[in-house]
């Protein structure tokens, strides 16, 4: 379905269902970039590990891991490295502003555009167009 689309010059951002079900049913080479969002917990990283393997196996472009809800960079990233090896990482801090925005039913960028989590996520844009694939 993705590949059938004539999206022209548009950038498509597809928020998939939780888990790796959709990714596993997607054909080969359907996307140019797979963002694997993980929390620094063993269970979340297990899913992340499987998603990374699947994305690589099925050639879903470059893989970037978004490590979300990071509380302590050192310990959290140590666990991530242990589970995910040398994957390309982006760190997003744990930030109550995200919960507040959700509670208010608003977008983070409208609710708290300068909060640490929003700043970290906005920086993703530069990585997306970074040619260092």
């Amino acid at each position, binding site marked *: *379905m*993705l*590949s*059938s*689309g*004539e*999206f*022209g*010059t*548009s*950038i*498509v*951002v*597809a*928020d*998939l*269902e*939780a*888990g790796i079900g*959709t*990714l596993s049913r997607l*054909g080969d080479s*359907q*996307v*140019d*970039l*797979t*963002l*694997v*969002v*993980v*929390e620094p917990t063993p*269970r*979340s990283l*297990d*899913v*992340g590990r499987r*998603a990374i393997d699947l*994305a690589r196996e099925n050639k*879903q472009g470059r893989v970037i891991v*978004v490590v*979300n*809800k990071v509380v302590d960079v050192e310990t959290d990233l140590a666990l991530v490295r242990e589970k995910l090896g040398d994957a390309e990482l982006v760190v*997003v801090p744990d930030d109550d502003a*995200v919960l507040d*925005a*959700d509670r208010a*039913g*608003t*977008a*983070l*960028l*409208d609710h708290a555009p300068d909060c640490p*989590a*929003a700043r970290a*996520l*906005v920086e*993703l*844009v530069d990585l*997306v167009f970074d040619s260092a694939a």
Partner: protein
Amino acid sequence: MKIAVVGKGGAGKTTTSAVLARSLARQGREVVALDCDTNPNLGISLGVGDLETERLVSLREQLDDGDVEHAADWDEILDRFGTDGPDGVRLGVITRIENPDPG
């Protein structure tokens, strides 16, 4: 460029998708955000509001129930089942994105 956002439940996929989509749009790029979750809420995180998000979800359900005709292509899908969100991001609520055909 097509970007898939994946991960365990509650990891932050929707938050990430929403901020990324709007940030890309703010750079002047045309962005289509696709909510492929069976429990769609990307619209709320993008900032289109819960009413509009609900409207898109129910439109989508009618389509899945066969109450309305399938769309022929992506542009038509987005016209009929999508909405224009903040910063010009176009949002579509999609089921079964892994299927070969749109609709």
